[in-house]
């Protein structure tokens, strides 16, 4: 039984600078169906849906609603077409009640909160939501806030609902509740899209699955006719040969031992759950996982930037002595003589000072050097010049603000500085994100060069093809836990892909 198409997207293309986020995508969304939009991080799911909800405009292609082409310039216009999106980050005013939030931004003739509240109650009872229109948002749980967002969209008359990773913040029980509501809405003839990368949820709630991979549309299948393995294959694709050189280092030695590392964030959520692994000299240790599985916290905990609840991180010096890093500040770790370099994910927000030039950024590592109150600029300036030449950084000069450089050049400055400190451990997070092919290979080569010098390299990556060719071993994180450690020379992409989603699937059983 085929339902009526509500939205048809044809040949939708969206570029951000050099990056093609969506490459000529065709997608049909039908009424009375729940469609799961599946794909790895960076595959373009959210971008595609943002074009439906009026946040972005496509660079090419067309969108049809009920067969007629439409142009959506703003979220308000999207509402006009009955399209509503529930974003990952809720956009609610904390000090307002649910009802106040729901009518916020609506230009109604008269603001009648009582009437709103009764209409909200009507929507709630129709689909089985559970919120009190007069409750203040700051008193609500995450799941209730999400409900307000959904009701807000329904109140505006949306019959095409897009939910961006709705279950990411929910407990299993809350997830079940949400799914019940989604099914009710489906019965009511609404078209529903959920963006997700959790396979078991796809299998449970959706009728159809559309898969995106690296900005391309792979295909749509009926959920009843597929299985997680087949979907994983579609999602990660078949291994591509990248021809990254992977020489073997002769005498690996233990360099960094992470043991039962557990970290908790401000809200008490476990970000890392007794993570253990060992990094060796002359090895690139890959870290794989869906984004938000604890990669960021792991690297920041090792460098002393994220507070550790329990566990230990020990650095093994050249003399074989173990140095405990947990409990030390970044400055203390450096002063202890632990040679650690870190290329963080947020290059300009954490690794560099955007408003300063290359010289000022080289200083970031050595600004304390020397006695006295004055900074020494000579050496950093020479270093900046060296990096500029060796890595072929394109910049008008060493004092030109790095914020204004292109992404690739920014990364060269950052990686160049970190490598120049001759570290014993080099950690990188998403080192090639947003970079073009050539710069990516420059980075791969630099990392391999470091590895052959006997550095223990930890490479957090998102592209499994690259991880499998670049790394020697791969630690797979899932929900803050180590799902497994694989030998990158023998492991397959599918094995890693399944490990990445392993725990969330287990919880359901």
């Amino acid at each position: 039984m085929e339902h009526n198409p509500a939205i048809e997207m044809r040949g939708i293309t969206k570029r951000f600078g050099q990056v093609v986020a969506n490459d000529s995508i065709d997608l049909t969304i039908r009424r009375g169906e729940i469609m799961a939009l599946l794909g790895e991080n960076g595959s373009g799911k959210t971008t595609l849906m943002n074009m439906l909800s009026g946040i972005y405009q496509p660079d090419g292609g067309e969108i049809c609603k009920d067969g007629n082409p439409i142009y959506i310039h703003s979220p308000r216009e999207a509402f006009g077409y009955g399209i509503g999106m529930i974003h990952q980050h809720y956009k609610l005013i904390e000090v307002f009640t649910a009802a106040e939030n729901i009518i916020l931004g609506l230009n109604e003739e008269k603001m009648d909160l009582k009437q709103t509240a009764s209409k909200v109650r009507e929507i709630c009872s129709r689909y089985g939501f559970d919120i009190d229109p007069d409750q203040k948002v700051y008193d609500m749980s995450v799941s209730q806030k999400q409900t307000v967002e959904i009701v807000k969209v329904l109140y505006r008359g949306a019959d095409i609902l897009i939910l961006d990773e709705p279950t990411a913040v929910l407990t299993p029980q809350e997830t079940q509740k949400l799914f019940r509501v989604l099914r009710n809405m489906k019965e009511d003839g609404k078209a529903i899209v959920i963006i997700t990368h959790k396979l078991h949820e796809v299998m449970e709630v959706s009728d159809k699955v559309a898969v995106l991979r690296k900005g391309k549309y792979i295909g749509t299948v009926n959920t009843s006719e597929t299985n997680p393995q087949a979907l994983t294959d579609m999602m990660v694709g078949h291994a591509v040969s990248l021809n990254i050189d992977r020489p073997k280092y002769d005498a690996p030695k233990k360099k960094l031992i992470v043991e039962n590392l557990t970290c908790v964030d401000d809200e008490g959520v476990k970000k890392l759950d007794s993570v253990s692994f060992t990094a060796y000299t002359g090895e690139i240790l890959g870290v794989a996982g869906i984004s938000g599985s604890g990669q960021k916290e792991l690297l920041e905990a090792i460098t002393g930037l994220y507070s550790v609840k329990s566990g230990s991180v020990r650095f093994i010096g050249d003399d074989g002595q173990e140095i405990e890093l947990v409990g030390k500040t970044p400055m203390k770790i450096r002063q202890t003589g632990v040679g650690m370099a870190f290329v963080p994910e947020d290059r300009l927000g954490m690794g560099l000072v955007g408003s300063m030039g290359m010289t000022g950024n080289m200083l970031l590592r050595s600004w304390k050097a020397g006695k006295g109150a004055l900074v020494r600029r000579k050496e950093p300036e020479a270093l900046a010049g060296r990096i500029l030449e060796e890595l072929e950084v394109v910049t008008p000069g060493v004092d030109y603000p790095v914020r204004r450089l292109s992404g690739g050049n920014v990364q060269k400055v950052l990686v160049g500085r970190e490598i120049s400190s001759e570290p014993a451990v080099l950690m990188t997070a998403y080192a090639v994100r947003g970079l073009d092919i050539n710069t990516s290979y420059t980075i791969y080569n630099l990392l391999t060069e470091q590895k052959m010098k006997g550095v223990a390299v930890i490479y957090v990556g998102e592209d499994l093809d690259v991880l499998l060719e670049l790394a020697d071993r791969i630690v797979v994180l899932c929900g803050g836990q180590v799902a497994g450690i694989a030998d990158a020379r023998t492991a397959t992409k599918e094995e890693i892909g399944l490990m990445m989603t392993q725990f969330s699937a287990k919880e359901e059983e």
Partner: protein
Amino acid sequence: MMSTEARTPMVRLAKRSDMSPRMIWCIRFGSILIALLLGCIPILLTGSNPIAAYEVIVAGSLSRPIYIRQTIRIAIPLLGCALAIAPCFKMRFWNIGAEGQITMGAVFASYFALFWVNRIPHVPLLIVMGIASAIAGGIWALIPAFFKAKWNTNETLFTLMMNYIAIGIVAWLQGGPWEGRKGSQLIPMFNDAARLPEVFRVNCGWIIVLVLAVLMHIYMNKTKQGYEIAVIGDSVNTARYAGMNVGWIMMRTMFISGAISGLVGFIIVSGANYTLYKGVANGVGFTSITVAWLSQLNSFAMIAISMVLAILEKGANTLQTRMQIPASIADIITGILLFCMLSSEFFINYRLIFRRKDEKGKEADA
């Protein structure tokens, strides 16, 4: 494909990749001219000739040595306080509590001026007053910084509220323990020994603030601490990544800032007012924010800008007596100046792209 063009808005903003420093200064200078032109409007509204009014402003503030000295007297605290605020603003720590820090500095300087004047000789007394005022201002600034570092309180509100506490303390001293003649609600005038000596017939505060300007320039651009401040201002996370103790640096910087403001308080009571009253800071702590912003936190530009604002203020007083134009016209022009200078930054960073004509035609076709 036509649809894509039709969707291009009338005017778009695009980030400018680069602009030569000369061009940037041309735009800034142009914005000052525009501000002066716009300033003609309120003058015209009062029924006067703007050119004559500007002439009176300049003549009233610079035409005679005595006017120049009076103008400089206004500029001294403005410059000193702008220098104090600069490191905080560089760090993106919005210290709008200079008013209170000046006041507390003035209180402690006054304490020694009133009660130790017979026990300490002239020069040492002035030095003690200076040190006391700096420490008092520093501690007054340290309090909000401590709370910010420890519990991430909002420094803007906190520093602002501290102003009123400081002013309240002076009001209490004025009517209570330090009151001179009973019922006068006034604190007695300082003895000569507690007054700053004059150099070229202006209190030597001008030397102090000029030296401070040079020192602040070096501090911000050449020292490790200045570097730390710049990094924190750009990104707190980068500062933490580099191993900086952000909370500690915030407190230290605020102490230095408050200390300079306190010193300005000392210069005001000991060099100009020779007494303490609750309006001692007289808005300097706020006007200096304008000075600091207009000069892009550049120490030497602050010297010029504080003079410009002093000329406006002094000249406007003359304007009032000669042309019956309210002196508050100076505040209006200062406001317009600030507005124009800040908007010029927008044009330095962005350019406007207007939709091309032919695209418009296409839209009509569609």
